């Protein structure tokens, strides 16, 4: 079960996206005993998913922004870091004890330094009907494409805003898949707010990639801009999407509806470990409080990648390097200062222009804060109206909301409802999300079986505390 898992490592990296790969490579190359835990079957995380074995060999379909991840994976494979796939880390303590589940069982290990690279997930997009079969995230569509060469083959519509939307659309078009329409929910007023950030954006790498991509897509797909409302319609699966652009509601028939309105950090392991987070009003999500090396308030624990704040795959890589460098030095190892300098320079370069993207693609309020019968907590099927009514009863925040409505008590542990609940309560109470706070998270941050937990070591004190004899 724990074949080959050492009792401790110098560095444990969690997550095999660009940040995790870069961090682990940096540490292993510097001679640290390094392990990387990957929930997936192969390295790459989400952005470079299946990069070693994608069935889509023709490079132009997925594009260069995907394929440049190849070198990261190759460097990682060559670095000598221990790679454990299919491994879900479900607990991390202040003392850096890691609980990990793989091969059907759970095991514990320690590390002197831990680098969390658990990345991001798609911002919830709570529109009426978003739980209908056939409604998925844009990221899900990309994963199906990358990993399995699957494209939606019926009537397919994309809805939302942000660069990933255009990227998927371009990939679909290059794969000769049909798209009915793109319902662009980019709020018109965002343009004015984005303008102050335009200058750095124009000098960033996003300009060349982004603008060309949009042009490519707009030439071939019907794009409906200024969408202000969305409803997924259907009985037991989605059959249409209704939308408004300010006037009357129109509908489009769909077999698949792919939604996207940006990414947010996947905070569960970090928060359950006790890492302090703050509400970021620009990115409308919770981000960890870190120093410039990614170190958190927990001794020996750093965060790199989109989990540190949404900044894209390139920035994730450089943050991974910096966290790796800091970890190596903390252990007493050596890294050439040139490596650190280069990483800082590259990171600064990749961060240029993020402000513009954040402002331009800031999701509109009504797409973040739903009303009525729209499901907010998918696991427990709690609606926006129920939450608002409970705030009216005096419920002050998300943790009391759990007690009232079971909202947030399901297996996803708030990943798909947390930011919505925070913002909904904030709006209902007329205070900032920062004041409302977030769910208190505890391990296991991913489900493990009773048997797995039962098989772990138990101290005398713990046994006595339970049996009381």
């Amino acid at each position, binding site marked *: 079960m724990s074949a080959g898992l050492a009792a401790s490592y110098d560095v444990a990296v969690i997550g095999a996206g660009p940040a995790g790969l870069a961090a682990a490579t940096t540490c292993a190359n510097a001679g640290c005993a390094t392990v990387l835990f990957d*929930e*997936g*079957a192969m390295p790459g995380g*989400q952005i470079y998913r*299946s990069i070693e*074995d994608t*069935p*889509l*060999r023709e490079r132009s*379909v997925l594009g260069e922004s995907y394929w440049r991840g190849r070198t990261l994976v190759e460097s990682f494979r060559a670095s000598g870091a221990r790679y454990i796939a*299919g491994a879900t880390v479900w607990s991390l303590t202040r003392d850096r004890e890691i609980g990990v589940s793989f091969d059907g069982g759970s095991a514990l290990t320690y590390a002197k330094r831990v680098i969390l690279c658990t990345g991001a*997930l*798609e911002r919830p997009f709570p529109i009426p009907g978003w*739980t*209908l*079969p*056939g*409604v*998925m*995230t844009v*990221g*899900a569509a990309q*994963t*199906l*494409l990358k*990993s*399995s*060469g*699957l*494209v*939606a*083959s*019926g009537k397919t519509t994309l809805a939302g805003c942000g660069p990933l939307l255009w990227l998927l659309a371009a990939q679909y078009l290059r*794969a000769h898949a049909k798209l009915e329409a793109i319902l662009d929910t980019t709020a018109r007023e965002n343009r004015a707010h984005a303008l102050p950030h335009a200058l750095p954006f124009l000098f960033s790498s996003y300009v060349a990639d982004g603008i060309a991509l949009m042009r490519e897509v707009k030439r071939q797909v019907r794009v409906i801009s200024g969408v202000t409302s969305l409803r997924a319609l259907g009985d*037991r*699966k989605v059959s249409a999407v209704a939308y408004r652009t300010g006037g009357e509601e129109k509908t489009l028939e769909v*077999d*698949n509806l792919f939604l996207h309105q940006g990414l947010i950090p*996947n905070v569960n392991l970090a928060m359950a470990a006790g890492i302090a987070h703050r509400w970021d009003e620009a990115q409308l999500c919770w981000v960890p409080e870190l120093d410039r090396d990614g170190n958190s308030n927990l001794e020996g624990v750093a965060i790199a990648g989109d989990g540190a704040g949404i900044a894209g795959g390139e920035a994730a890589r450089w943050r991974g390097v910096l966290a790796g460098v800091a970890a190596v030095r903390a252990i007493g190892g050596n890294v050439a200062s040139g490596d650190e300098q280069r990483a800082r320079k590259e990171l600064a370069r990749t961060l240029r222009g993020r402000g513009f993207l954040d402002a331009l693609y800031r999701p509109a309020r009504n797409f973040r804060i739903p009303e009525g019968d729209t499901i907010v907590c*998918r*696991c*427990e*099927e709690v609606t926006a109206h129920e939450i608002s009514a409970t705030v009216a009863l005096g419920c002050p925040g998300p943790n009391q909301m759990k007690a009232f409505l079971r909202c947030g008590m*399901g*297996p*996803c542990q708030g*990943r*798909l409802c947390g930011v919505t609940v925070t913002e909904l309560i904030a709006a209902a109470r007329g205070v900032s999300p920062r004041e409302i706070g977030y769910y208190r998270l505890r391990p296991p941050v*991913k489900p493990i079986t009773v048997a797995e937990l039962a098989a772990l070591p138990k101290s005398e004190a713990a046994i006595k505390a339970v049996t009381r004899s």
Partner: protein
Amino acid sequence: MFARLPPEAGDAVTLSIDGKACTARTNDTVAAALLASGLDHCRTTGVSGAPRAPYCMMGVCFDCLVTIDGIGNRQACLVPVREGMRVEVQRGKRELGR
């Protein structure tokens, strides 16, 4: 509904979905195989019985839960397909011993 992009790469894998044989590809996750097979929904919830299908394909939404080889509530998007695998729609709550 989903279609495979040509050319076919990787070996075919046969599994059963609710007893019906279906062909997937190596490196597919069970979720991908289900979607490729045209399955409408992979579970009905234990709360209301509403039908659900994969949403995020990255293990965070818990909507792709299915019974695999007799064990319920497995996240289909995190399980690679295997020859002879028996997949069943997860109907409502988990059952003891299953």
